[in-house]
């Protein structure tokens, strides 16, 4: 009889331990969020926004992120959206690249030589994303959903979410498909459900404590596809923008409170 009780005790100990584990991980996340170096990247982003660059030696201050030339307030949370001048749907990083090539006259090759930075040297897109996203704090997330190309981008994003590809047959839903699932200790939000997508999209882009890097949604798409064992998605391509569009639209209505803080 004793053995059975011991086993039972061990079993419920593991169960209790599992719940404690989840609760403690939540506390860990909450504590690191309180002290985030993300603000340091916002400072760096402001410098870059105002810094004349490229053959035309012009800053990005006249870049139209959708709310009018140079308007930052609320710009991030209204992306992705359709831009007539480029005749396509763009997220923040695609739009920044557009302004770098048009306003500043930089070549696409030069501007995208280093789209993802390192702890020692963040990329321009990372610092700029920190600064611009911060200008949307407190504004409700509402990407473009009315233009036919916006609807098509959203539908493409949804289909991509469930497309099983790569050497390991994964889709986004393989990991982000069922409530309460974890990879290692990392909880996996079911991102096609509004209630799960809202807290996530409201806190991206973010400072990642484990690598001391500031990471953007373009990086997130890139790194997820790397782990799905597919070839590499081109930076700011229609695929990446459509996925970001689907996730942002799923989170619409939430008040933006980033840049955030990730493990």
């Amino acid at each position, binding site marked *: 009889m004793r053995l059975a009780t011991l086993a039972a005790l061990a079993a419920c100990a593991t169960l209790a331990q599992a719940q*404690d*584990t989840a609760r403690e991980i939540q*506390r860990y996340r909450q504590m690191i969020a309180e*002290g985030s170096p993300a603000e340091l990247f916002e400072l760096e982003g402001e410098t870059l926004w105002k810094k004349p660059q490229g053959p035309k030696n012009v800053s990005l201050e006249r870049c139209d992120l959708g709310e009018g030339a140079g308007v930052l307030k609320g710009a991030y949370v209204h992306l992705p959206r359709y831009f007539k001048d480029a005749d396509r749907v763009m997220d923040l990083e695609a739009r920044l690249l557009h302004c770098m090539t048009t306003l500043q006259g930089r070549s696409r090759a030069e501007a995208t030589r280093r789209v993802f930075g390192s702890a020692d040297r963040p990329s321009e897109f990372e610092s700029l994303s920190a600064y611009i996203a911060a200008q949307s704090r407190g504004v409700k997330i509402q990407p473009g959903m009315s233009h036919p190309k916006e609807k098509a981008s959203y539908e493409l994003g949804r289909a991509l979410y469930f497309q099983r590809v790569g050497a390991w047959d994964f889709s986004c839903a393989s990991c982000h498909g069922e409530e309460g699932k974890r990879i*290692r200790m*990392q909880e996996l939000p079911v991102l096609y459900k509004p209630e799960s997508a809202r807290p996530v999209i409201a806190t991206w882009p973010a400072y990642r404590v*484990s690598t001391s890097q500031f990471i953007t949604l373009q990086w997130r798409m890139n790194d997820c596809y790397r782990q799905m064992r597919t070839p590499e998605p081109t930076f700011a391509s229609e695929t990446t923008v459509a996925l970001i569009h689907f996730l942002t639209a799923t989170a619409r209505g939430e008040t933006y409170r980033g840049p955030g803080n990730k493990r």
Partner: protein
Amino acid sequence: MNRLRRALLAALALGLVRPLAALAAWNKDAFGAKTPADALKSLGIAGATPSKEVVIDAPEIAENGAVVPIEVSSNVPGTSALIVLIEKNPFPLAARFDFRDGALPYAKLNVKMGETSDIRVLAEAAGKYYSATKEVKVTIGGCGG
């Protein structure tokens, strides 16, 4: 005259008398110590009485040892310093805070932990030391890929 000067320099070297403006000399021996005991010896600390008045707020589980947020404080009256040790780190002494008129004995910081370990905090008050410990489990988060 030089006897006084020599005594003052010696005192300065031992960090007993801090020049008002300059910062405390960084205690190379204590921070270079490889065990908690050696670190405390270099700080001239013989022993400490465990006390609930020394408070450590830290997560029980840290998803990543690179950034472990800890909040340390002391309710022992007259606390003038807080010393933070991470027992299993290659160099256990992580930080020492000296508080002077106007500052509460409190500090919040992010520390690195090589592995699951006890965090030990000592509070100094009127030349006596009080201590508390808390274990933080360090796991590897993420996809490990």
